[in-house]
């Protein structure tokens, strides 16, 4: 039974793990939370292998689970995830002898500013931008999120505007969820 599950998991889920990891990382920008998101998605997949096998697009099914898990976890948490030094990327780069610390820091500062601004966004906006960054078009994102394409288009516009605003106002670093939530 375990072997059968493993085989089905390998057939249905394993090919998509690199993608899930990438999308999860885009959403939370740190390895522990990204690993947790993927792990929870894998657990959901293990519990629903039959459903997954019947899905037209297992990849989209998995992305939808990952998205829902991301939104639910953040709602419970009620805050934007912290941004720890990343063991696989950040620390590794910082431990390297090249490039020098100043250059490295400058390079990372730009990325870090964008990360911080991104983490200020609503979960749905982050999901949308993360999937777009992975190359999904709005039609595909609509099937993954279950949200209509025109609604997504409007959200995407708002997400970009919000992101730009957060980038322009770096001092506005209050975690999104600690402020009053908007009605939308």
């Amino acid at each position, binding site marked *: 039974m*375990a072997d059968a599950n*493993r085989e089905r*998991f*390998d057939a249905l*889920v*394993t*090919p*998509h*793990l*690199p*993608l899930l*990891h*990438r999308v999860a*990382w*885009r959403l939370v920008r740190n*390895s*522990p939370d990204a*690993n*947790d998101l*993927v*792990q929870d998605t*894998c*657990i959901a997949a*293990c*519990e629903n292998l039959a459903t997954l096998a019947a899905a037209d697009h297992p*990849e989209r099914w998995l992305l939808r689970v990952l998205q829902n898990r991301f939104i639910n976890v953040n709602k419970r*948490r009620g*805050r934007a*995830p*912290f*941004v720890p*030094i*990343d*063991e*696989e*990327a950040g*620390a*590794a780069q*910082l*431990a*390297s*002898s090249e490039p020098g*610390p100043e250059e490295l*820091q400058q390079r990372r500062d730009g*990325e*870090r500013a*964008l*990360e911080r601004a*991104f983490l200020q966004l609503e979960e749905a906006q982050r999901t949308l*931008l*993360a999937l*777009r*960054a*992975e*190359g999904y*078009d709005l*039609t595909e994102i609509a099937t993954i999120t279950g949200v209509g394409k025109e609604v997504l288009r409007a959200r995407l516009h708002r997400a*970009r505007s919000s992101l*730009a605003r957060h980038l322009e106002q770096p001092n506005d670093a209050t*975690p999104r969820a600690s402020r009053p939530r908007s009605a939308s």
Partner: protein
Amino acid sequence: MNCQELGRILDEQELRWLPAAERASAEAHLAGCPDCARDHQLDLRLAALSIPPLAPKSLAGWRALANSKVIGRSGRMRNRFIIVGVVAALAAAAAMPGWWNRRALEQPVAVLQPVPAATSVPVAQLPEPAAVASQPAAAAIRKYTVQVRLLTRSIDNAELQAAIDQGYAHFINVLRAGPQLTIVPAEQLADFRVTYNAFGPTRPDRIRPDRTWLAFITVEAAERDLAPEQVAAGRRAAASLAKGNFWGNSLSEALGVDGFAVVHSIESSSQFVPGCLPDISTSQPEAVCSFIAVAQQQAESVRLVGLPADVGLEHQLQQRVGDGTLPWQQRHASMQLLAEMARKKPRGADMDQNFLKGALDLIAATPDASDRATLWSMLDYIVRDLKDPVRLLIDAVPREPDEHIRLDAVNMLAKHFPDDPQVRAAMREMAIADASDLVRNAARQAAGGDSEVREYIVAIVKNASLSPTERLRPLAVINSEEQLKDTLGDESVVRAMVEILPDLARDTSQDKPMMMAIGGLGYARTPSAVDALLAVLRAAEDDLADSAYGMLYKSAVITGLSRHRDDPRAEAALLKIASSDANPTARQAAAKVLQGQ
């Protein structure tokens, strides 16, 4: 073209499909419209944000979930992986003066613990140990001083505070037992400084919901004892820790400002259950449902990896690994600490006579293949300094039931003991008797038969009666770049690749030999190498466009083509990717190659 029209194009990422005139119009609009240009730039910047590669251990851990008996039982198994041990270890070897000058510069590691699928069941009995060659005793170390301070932050749950205090007291006691080590007050000059931060549930913004306590420990060394590059590395780590990350606020006041540089750091976290602080880094939390056990491991990591050589502790850990009466988890944790130490500095102690037997017993008693693979990889670090490969180790390799682990073990023996007559004799035997052709050929190679193995690989790759998977499978026995280049230096092999690779690309379970083949084609100086790379590129674009493997292979092809830029076809393919590929990451990668970066 107005903003709305361009917006619809950007939303669909259709810029690349536009006819030249329309595309020029879109680009003209972008050039003259700051708002649209800003949106477009944001898309590009988001797509370009760095993402670390997927760690093989994470992948193995997730795949192991499919076999876990925990799933489907009472609730879900959640967050059983935990990052333990090292976040960063930054000591460099050669330039270190004095008595702790034997550490190697290492990249940081994050150890994701796999979850064993079942309780321990012996797989095979091992014979009694033969005499183990003794290693030279570690050089005597002089006395040294350590400042230790506790920073408890926002732990206002009395029970958690008490548990953390109890654990911290144990941590200090274990630390204090270090040889030649004297703990001094914080205001006194010292050779090392240990900083212990604990966070509790009253700061939910600092602790993930499933990890209700967290301890973060850093070991710093006095900069006066470090080489300049070590000081620089330690300061970079401190700057990173202090700036814009989880621990920044608490550590910025402590790190990198007063003559100390970070040389080792540890993170531990788990759930706080009243009366219990389980270490969820293992499969048996009930066995260590105590912060004492966690503190013990933390202190041992500090002593073993962050501070000067600790021969006594190393012996204790070796004995624990070999103690069959201890829980599997505890033996595994001891093995992990020894491997962590071995990665960072040469062995400091004699190897206990029973240690290797104990380690091999532990492997044999571990039913889950991914756990065994992890243990073998730990052993790889530990045995690398053995002067004598030890009969026990040689005998254990053929007993390993998993073909791929056995293959790795054969390669490990070949790597560490290439000229040892015992190893070569054992390899010759495995080259004939092993059930797996992969292992047989790896063993044959280890026994000195490179040319024979190469002929074997070439014959299989060229055998058109086999499936693409079968034809590429022997590449797995290649264990060096030189061998790969040598094998792919044969034009007939590369021509065969043109047939094999596009078909094999569709079988995503074959990503390892695919990546090896694509990587080798970058170095192959044969006329068909570019043909083969372009064939993979077409497969990635046509058959794997919706798969992460498509991007994976495409990235490897871009790298391969970058080594064939003297071929106009390679240049043209790179130009096409850079200008019109659907994936921004691919476009950027190709553009960088074309710009010579």
